[in-house]
């Protein structure tokens, strides 16, 4: 079927708008702070074969893998066997997923009795069982990290609304009011997507809608390839390091060889450290997401829709048994850390081919920070996802205090926390002086947040990185500050490691400090007026200002 270019333009924008509406409604009807405030979820529309067509641009990490995790569902439950009311659910990292907390829902879009596509949503759930609320820093396998959902066919009438599957989920999560409400938000988002595509099919005809789905993927592929073709051919190498595995072994290298050949790219992670016994292993699907996100951000225009077509020009490989392609059932909860180093390694490789397009390393670490407390009324779980300072670019200072490039979580307002949590109180939220790397362009500054603990029996658990290492500058720029986590107890400071769980006492003050981004270019080239401005604003100290570029 050939499409009139105008109808194609109109229909494709309508499909993208439908995906965006799904994402907005997913967030706005959600219940947990992780989904409603941090916005750790995504939504997409898929063609009948599971190719992603359009996505709500929320979390880059999740966007690359929605189509991949659909395939094991389709293999088990072919679309011809689905009935009205059915939907598919999965969270298994070893079937193309991310980590167990990211649960994917796929709703078939029926039109005139046939499935013409799927509406998909994924949300990070606050708690999905496992050995510890929110996140289990001590997990040594996948089973300890939470409930594993293999590809499942669920019927809304039979299995939800009080049915068996819903009750099984409810029985296995610590904060059911929030988690079950978030599942409902996913269903609502998918229902919106289904309705919008059905409306388009009714108005323009099924053939035009399905043709548009195919054409939109081809369009993204074409634009990706056009952008890649402009980058000089060659094989470029990059590497980055994780502090350790959380048990003291490290640093752990992540190495990438990026080969640009015409309008295609291959990324090979041979040379990366072997998988570890802790949760920083990254399931392979998440590594593809990280690699493609980096190449898309560095080399192409931000307005190219991210769909299956944008994945086609890029091939990613990682040896089995490594950090970036672990064997079942290695734990993967903190996969963002290894994925962020994969991002860094790919960026460093690309910097040799397109120096004006890349940025220095940022703190580029997802810090998942969890406070929990079992009170008389049940569990109270607070989870926040923090970034740090961005790397600087050729024409700009790095962005201060912002989420990791692979993620895009918002902070939770202090006044919302004050209302929702009685066992702690935020007492400080500050940019860190001198945390951005020096350079012609300064790295973004990191920040810190302090929590005063108001009851006995609370637990802090988190994962982070770059507590011993740091972001590197580029083309002469300096490194950003490292991160740290400290507990102030009776006037004594207790320093914690980058991946830890720690029992707290009433009166403790926990301070999590996130690092800064690296600088870009030689510090001596920074205009004096910018140094002076940073000094006046307290972003840099007098000592650093005087030493800058010397």
């Amino acid at each position, binding site marked *: 079927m050939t499409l009139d*270019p*105008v109808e*194609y*333009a*109109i229909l*494709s*924008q*309508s499909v993208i708008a439908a995906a965006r*509406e799904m994402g907005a*409604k997913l*967030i*706005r*009807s959600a*219940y*947990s*702070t992780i989904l*409603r405030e941090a*916005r750790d979820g995504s939504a997409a529309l898929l063609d009948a074969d599971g190719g992603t067509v359009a996505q709500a*641009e*929320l979390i*880059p990490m999740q966007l690359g893998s929605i189509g991949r995790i659909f395939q094991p569902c389709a293999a088990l439950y072919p679309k011809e066997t689905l009935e009205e009311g059915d939907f598919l659910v999965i969270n298994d990292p070893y079937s193309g997923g991310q980590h167990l907390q990211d649960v994917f829902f796929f709703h078939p879009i029926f039109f005139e009795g046939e499935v013409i596509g799927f509406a998909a949503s994924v949300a990070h759930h606050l708690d999905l069982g496992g050995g510890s609320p929110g996140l289990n820093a001590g997990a040594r396998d996948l089973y300890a990290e939470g409930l594993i959902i293999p590809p499942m066919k669920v019927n809304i009438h039979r299995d939800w609304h009080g049915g068996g599957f819903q009750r099984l989920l409810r029985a296995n999560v610590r904060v059911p*009011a929030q988690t079950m*409400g978030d599942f*409902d938000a996913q269903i609502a988002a998918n*229902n*919106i997507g289904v309705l919008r595509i059905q409306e388009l099919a009714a108005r323009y005809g099924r053939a035009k809608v399905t043709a548009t789905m195919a054409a939109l993927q081809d369009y*993204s592929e*074409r634009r990706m390839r*056009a952008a890649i073709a402009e980058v000089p051919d060659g094989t470029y190498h990059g590497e980055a390091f994780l502090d350790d595995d959380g048990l003291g072994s490290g640093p752990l290298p992540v190495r990438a060889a990026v080969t640009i050949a015409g309008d295609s790219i291959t990324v090979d992670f041979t040379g990366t450290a072997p998988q570890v016994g802790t949760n920083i292993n990254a399931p392979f699907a998440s590594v593809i997401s990280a690699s493609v*996100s980096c190449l898309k*951000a560095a080399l192409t225009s*931000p307005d190219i829709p991210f769909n299956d077509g944008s994945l086609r020009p890029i091939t990613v490989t990682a040896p089995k048994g490594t950090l970036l392609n672990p064997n079942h059932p290695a734990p993967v909860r903190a996969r963002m850390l290894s994925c962020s180093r994969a991002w860094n390694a790919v960026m460093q490789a690309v910097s040799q081919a397109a120096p004006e397009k890349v*940025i220095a390393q940022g703190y580029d670490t997802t810090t998942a920070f969890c406070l929990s407390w079992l009170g008389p009324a049940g569990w109270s779980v607070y989870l926040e996802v923090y*970034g740090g300072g*961005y790397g600087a*670019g050729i*024409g*700009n200072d790095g*962005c201060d*205090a*912002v*989420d990791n*490039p692979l993620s*895009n979580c*918002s902070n939770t*307002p*202090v*006044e*919302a926390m*004050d*209302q929702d949590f009685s066992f702690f*109180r*935020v007492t400080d*939220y*500050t*940019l860190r002086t001198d945390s951005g790397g020096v350079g012609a362009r300064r790295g973004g500054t990191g*920040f810190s947040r302090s929590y005063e603990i108001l009851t006995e029996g609370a637990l802090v658990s988190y994962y982070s990185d770059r507590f011993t290492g740091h972001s590197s500058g580029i083309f002469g720029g300096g490194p950003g500050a490292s991160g740290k986590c400290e507990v102030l107890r009776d006037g004594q400071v207790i320093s914690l490691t980058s991946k830890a769980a720690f029992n707290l006492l009433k009166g403790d003050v926990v301070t999590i400090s996130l690092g800064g981004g690296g600088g870009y270019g030689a510090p001596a080239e920074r205009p004096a007026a910018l140094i002076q401005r940073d000094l*006046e*604003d*307290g972003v840099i100290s007098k000592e650093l200002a005087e030493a800058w570029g010397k």
Partner: protein
Amino acid sequence: MRVGIEVGGTFTDLVAVDQGEVRVIKVPSTPRSPDIGAFNALGAAGIPPESVTDLVHGSTVATNAILERRGANIAFVATKGFRDILFMQRHDRRSIYDLHYAKPAPPVRRRDCFEVPERIAPDGSVIAPLDEAAVTHDLIPALAAGGYQAVAICLLSAYASPAHEMRLKEMIEAALPGLKVAASHEVAPEFREFERASTTALSAYVQPVIDGYLDRFGATLAGAGFTGHFSVMQSNGGRMPAIAMRKNAITALLSGPAAGVVGAIRQAARSDRGNLITFDMGGTSTDVALVQDGEASLAAETEVDGLPIRTPVLDIVTVGAGGGSLVWIDDGGMLRVGPRSAGAEPGPACYGKGGTQPTVTDAHVVRGTIRPDAFLGGGMSLDAAAAHRAFEDVAKRLGTDVQGAAAAAIRLAVANIVRAIQLVSTERGRDPRDYALLPFGGAGPLLAAEIAEELGIREILVPPNPGVISALGLLSADYVKLRGITRRVGLGDETPAIIAADCARLREATESEFAALGLTGPLEHSLELDMRFVGQAFEIPVTVAPAELPGLTAADLAERFAAAHQRVYLHGGEPGRKVELVGLRFGVRRRLDALPEVKERASGLSRPPSAEVMGVPAKLVDAAGLSVGEAVSGPALIEGYSSTTWVPPGWTGARDAAGNMLLRKEG
């Protein structure tokens, strides 16, 4: 005489009404000193200021002060530990793949941000008292040394108890008379500290600019013998006396689009139409709003240049699709319209000012819906050949001719506006077919019928002088004050009484303010409740008439909320899911006398009986010459001074007794 003057980016519009006689004038804006343009408009209309009894003004002065970061030199004061609120923002990025991302720049530098030791809990109780010694010894000397024009205060939980902010403000004012102090509990007493701090800082930032502008404006008026009422338009769709803007300038932001919606509502009411979708298409963008039963819905928050502003505003969606929007083909081969615009310089190719890229206006010229010698009532002649040339490249790349390319561009422009309309209708659970479409702005009526076709809308109401509806809206805007507060309580038996107590308090405060401003007469009240399921973060507004409040139970409120949730999210929550009230907005309105009928301004242009539009002959009709009841069936172009209406085949237009033109789809 009543006069409305609306200053826009390109034109300053004036509408004057005097004993049934209406004058309409458009003059060029004077962006550096917008008041000059406003007085030029008065001069051009031949209106002596002493003859004006009621002058309503809308301008972009406040908005531009933010966009261009030309506001006052201000300081910001927060609770100890939180001076970086304005820089932290929400920790997210608007463009997720942009490596060179920069956050929206706050209106204050970090060196000008200070802290005071204190802390209040969300129930209003004091956790740490305000450290007055620190205020006296640290803060006040720093504020004195900074040479600030204004200071913004935002303390944590001030929405729950203003005690510390009030005391702090009192201390600063006593020590530093002349320094203006904006406190967050006065500007936006609602929870979420970043949004409240941003609103308060922006209020402090624009206040001195607005004060200076209104001082100068008032002095010029007084010097010319003006003794009437002088009001300023607000973004909530109401006006307030200029003197009231000295306390809260933030409501003057983005007043232009709100004025347009108000003008459209008033004009439609004359034809007994209360359910409307309005769209105001100008040179660079289109503003869309949905009106239910004569009331535009409100949004609790808006933003300027990425900075959030927490104040009730008319819920208007803007898309980058205007007459000047560029038509282009991207590197993936897709045809695009906007969001970039040719602007005023060089403007569309047909303006002959050097533009070579095709625009939506050029597409109209090519297909014949804009006649080159009838533009702006014949006041500006267009270069049709340049419009054709501009489309040659796009046509070649689409594999069609220039006519085909222009038609494609128009269809895409229509689709962009249709999507904006779906945002305010379908996405909020409203079916656009239940509404009349009301186009205005210079470019609106040309596209209205094609937009209506796409949405299944069967009735279009084109007001007289569609190009100056915003100025008309100023004239007809009521005096309105809206106050939003946070009131978070689980829905229970006592909730209606709590709401009633809040309403009584807000009513008393607002009515005494009205009385002090001399706004007497019958006042109307409105109430909107922000509700959500316990655990959610985003509220859904539920409208309740204050008069029915005594008879409402918690169950009634829960039921109304569930219905609203169902409409937007296609589900109403599981049975038994708890509902909470989060906040409310209380409004006081003093209605204005109805305006006399507004007639279409005559253009005085002579025209042939027909012209070729899209290859077929279309009737040419003078909008001002169209008498009541006279029907014009399409294809036809109904040409007015400020705008042209396209009546496609299958549609019929007729002017009704109220002076509006109703377009209906036949069959």
